[in-house]
């Protein structure tokens, strides 16, 4: 156990980061909105609480998020299991593809979804404007969180525990329920919390696939702020959203706080194997078919669309990206866009990994109330409306240094979203690391720092790799903060896609640019996987 003093020291950095870049801007904008002329705008609250429209929005926000979380878990857990325990051809590529949805702009995904499930569907189903379209889209976007969040944990569980249970006569289901599930519980809860927060604050999916009756608080806050210019009502709704998120995070913290089981973790290289029996093959194929239907189909539609031109199939849309027939100063080649994207993504990953690891260390060491409060606080940015945080930056960050239009703010904003991923994926692993390993190291004369480096770090490295990949994907796909601060000459890939979508006639090029975005993330995911493969052999 670390000393209180050093814990405070370690905790100060993430606390400062969260305080300066989240709490302070948030409080400032809420104060601006709710105390416009020195008095509290109580009318905005009563309006928010009494309007039946807003009550409907709040209720829909909650139940669709809960349902999305349950469905994402139901689809994701079998896939996570298959990836963790079996080897099969195309495993790495398929797993890399599951991360791709994370970065795709919702307008682009919306077009692909409507092509498959809209009025012109080849399957004859029209789900446009229904809750089903929203649910499927949330699963599409968030599946990677479950597959990787739980998977990273699952593939390190020593199968001998399960084998032991089986030897003692337990059936498959009983083994899962009494042995595997308790061990996975922290990782499942962590992933569920992240999926819930993303669905709860869903914005683009709702705008593109929802209709006027299906809308979330996130959309309503944005609409009140930007269409009606009602900052007071928008702020009251943001407070409502924040209360909802906090309550759920507290419940989650309580559920999670039950003692995590210490178990022996193993590198996955020894665990995954080829399916042997017919039943195993059937299970693997069936699970992967569901995955393919939900994740791969829309991606195939997008690639196909990028290859379709006015003059038949071909690469003209890609050629136009490099050498557009109609150039303007806002034109940016894919290579420049990739370079610009990396310029923000690399610092974002470093900030998120550094601050997230410090925070996770504090959370694990300071068991009990303070650790839990800190844990909850770090998750809040994910559950706060983006337009509120964005406006908060503008009103709060002009002093002592004016950061409002500074490029520093781009990786910072991305890291705010990514830090919960680092915390969520490293805390369960840290909690499970057997204390006696650490004690053994101490007995052998290692300093706490050395013990951490030699014992904890190698085991955390895998979870951190997963989190870093998510941080990368978050930064690469982010549009709002980036588009405001990025100059025309420093446009990232999503910014370039939106420019191409913003006018008639360049849809094919927008699709081609989206495929570039898909490729970057898939390559990064494959790269991490390759590095992981060699590293785990060394552990």
């Amino acid at each position, binding site marked *: 156990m670390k000393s209180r*003093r050093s814990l*405070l*020291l370690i905790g*100060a*950095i993430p606390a*400062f980061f969260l305080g300066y870049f989240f709490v302070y801007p948030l409080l400032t*904008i809420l104060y*601006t909105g709710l105390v416009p002329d020195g008095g509290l705008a109580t009318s905005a609250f009563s309006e928010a609480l009494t309007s039946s429209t807003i009550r409907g929005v709040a209720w829909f926000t909650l139940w669709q998020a809960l349902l999305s979380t349950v469905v994402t878990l139901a689809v994701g857990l079998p896939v996570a299991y298959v990836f963790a325990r079996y080897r099969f051809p195309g495993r790495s590529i398929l797993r890399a593809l599951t991360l791709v949805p994370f970065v795709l702009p919702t*307008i682009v995904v*919306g*077009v692909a979804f*409507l*092509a498959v499930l809209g*009025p*012109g569907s080849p399957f004859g189903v029209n789900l446009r404007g229904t809750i089903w379209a929203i649910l499927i889209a949330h699963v599409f976007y968030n599946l990677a969180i479950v597959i990787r969040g739980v998977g990273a944990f699952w593939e390190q569980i020593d199968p001998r525990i399960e084998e032991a249970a089986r030897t003692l006569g337990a059936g498959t289901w009983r083994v899962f329920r009494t042995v595997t599930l308790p061990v996975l519980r922290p990782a499942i809860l962590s992933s569920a919390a992240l999926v819930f927060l993303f669905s709860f604050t869903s914005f683009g999916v709702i*705008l*593109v696939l929802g209709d*006027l009756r299906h809308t979330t608080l996130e959309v309503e806050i944005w*609409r009140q*702020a*930007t*269409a*009606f*210019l009602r*900052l007071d009502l928008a702020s009251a709704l943001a407070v409502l959203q924040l209360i909802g998120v906090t309550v759920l995070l507290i419940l989650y913290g309580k559920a999670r706080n039950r003692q995590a089981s210490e178990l022996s973790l193993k590198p996955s290289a020894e665990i995954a194997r080829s399916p042997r029996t017919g039943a195993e093959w059937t299970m693997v194929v069936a699970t992967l078919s569901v995955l393919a239907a939900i994740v791969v189909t829309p991606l195939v539609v997008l690639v196909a*669309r990028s290859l379709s031109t006015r003059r038949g199939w071909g690469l003209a849309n890609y050629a136009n990206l490099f050498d557009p*027939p*109609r*150039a*303007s*100063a*806002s034109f940016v080649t894919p290579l420049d866009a990739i370079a610009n994207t990396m310029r923000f993504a690399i610092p974002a990953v470093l900030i998120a990994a550094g601050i997230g690891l410090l925070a996770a260390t504090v959370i694990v060491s300071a068991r009990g109330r303070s650790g839990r409060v800190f844990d909850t606080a770090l998750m809040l940015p994910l559950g706060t409306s983006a337009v509120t945080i964005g406006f908060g930056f*503008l*009103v709060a960050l*002009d002093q002592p*240094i*004016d*950061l*409002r*239009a*500074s*490029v*520093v703010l781009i990786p910072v904003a991305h890291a705010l979203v990514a830090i919960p991923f680092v915390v969520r994926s490293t805390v369960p692993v840290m909690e499970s690391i057997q204390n006696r390993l650490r004690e053994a190291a101490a007995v052998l004369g290692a300093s706490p720092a050395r013990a951490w480096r030699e014992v904890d770090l190698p085991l955390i490295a895998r979870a951190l790799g997963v989190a870093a990949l998510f941080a990368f994907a978050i930064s690469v796909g982010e*549009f*709002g903060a980036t*588009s*405001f*601060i*990025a*100059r*025309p000459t420093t446009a990232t890939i999503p910014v370039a896609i*939106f*420019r191409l*979508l*913003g*006018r*008639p*006639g*360049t849809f*094919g090029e927008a699709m081609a640019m989206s495929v570039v975005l898909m490729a970057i993330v898939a390559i990064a995911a494959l790269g991490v996987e390759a590095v992981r493969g060699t590293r785990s052999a060394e552990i």
Partner: protein
Amino acid sequence: MMNRSALAALFAVLTVLGAACSSAEEAPDEIVLMTHGSFAVSEGVLEAFTSETGVAVTVLESADAGTMVNQAILTKDNPVADVLYGIDNTFLSRAVDEALFLAYEAANIDLVPSTLHAAGNFATPIDVGDVCVNLDPAGFDALGLEAPTRLTDFADPAYRGVFVVEDPSTSSPGLSFLLSTIARFGEDGDYPWQAYWTDLVANDVQIVAGWEQAYYGEFSGGSGEGERPAVVSYATSPVAEVYYGELEAAPTTMIEDGCFRQIEYAGILSGTTAETTAQQLVDFLLTRTFQEDIPLNMFVFPANSEAILPDVFIEYATVPADPVLMDPSVIEENRDRWLSEWAAIVR
């Protein structure tokens, strides 16, 4: 206890980082232009301003006009920019009421038709465009229907399910179209705008959140991927189809009934510390150098009547003869009520 020196060191690092990144922006030889996401300009145009004045132009792009106006209002006392460009007649009054702009009579304002001028010179008209219904003639042929010519056609059961519009509370062309139906059908009388919208809904109008979804996702004409042959877009969208598609003839058309005129203005933000340079920039936006660059980048018309239009505009663009031109103060007074009434009809 908190380690003070660590905190101080962190602040120092942040300060250096911040200073390194923002020093260029705060230098007096730079001016910041805040605009919306549709802003585009050819290479070398803004540089012409720099070579004239020695002042570099930095562009800050907000996602949409509503966000931009809000950002400007929130930062009124200590603005992030000096000049705001791209605020239109649907939001202008709000900005003027908030005392967002300094009055200024631009050097070339006499070259702009007086119908476009803003009251009190708090903003300078820079470009003008019309939001109009676009049609896919081939799509109507395939349905065995005559191409519609009037807004009322879309309420006719014969034209059921052909029309897609944008939500006025999330989209700028959507708001323009709502306003044009209000002006066209009036608030009272036998067939007010509310009755027209009730008929549109009964006739299966598709309402989507934004222009991109309406045009690319639902519209069947031009580069649209959808099934519906009529969409709320811009009068110049057929021109853009010809231009980007490198075509000989426009694949889409527009109808003149119910076009709404959007005027985009530039205003000098009242908290600017560089008022003179800001005035120079507004003047520059009205010069032919900038004005003649507007059409092919943003597909709207220059406000300066002396600006020469590109050939593709002369050949393919239609300027509606009698568009709806609504006073910004009327829009500001009624916008919230109209949006609420509209929402009650379509929900």
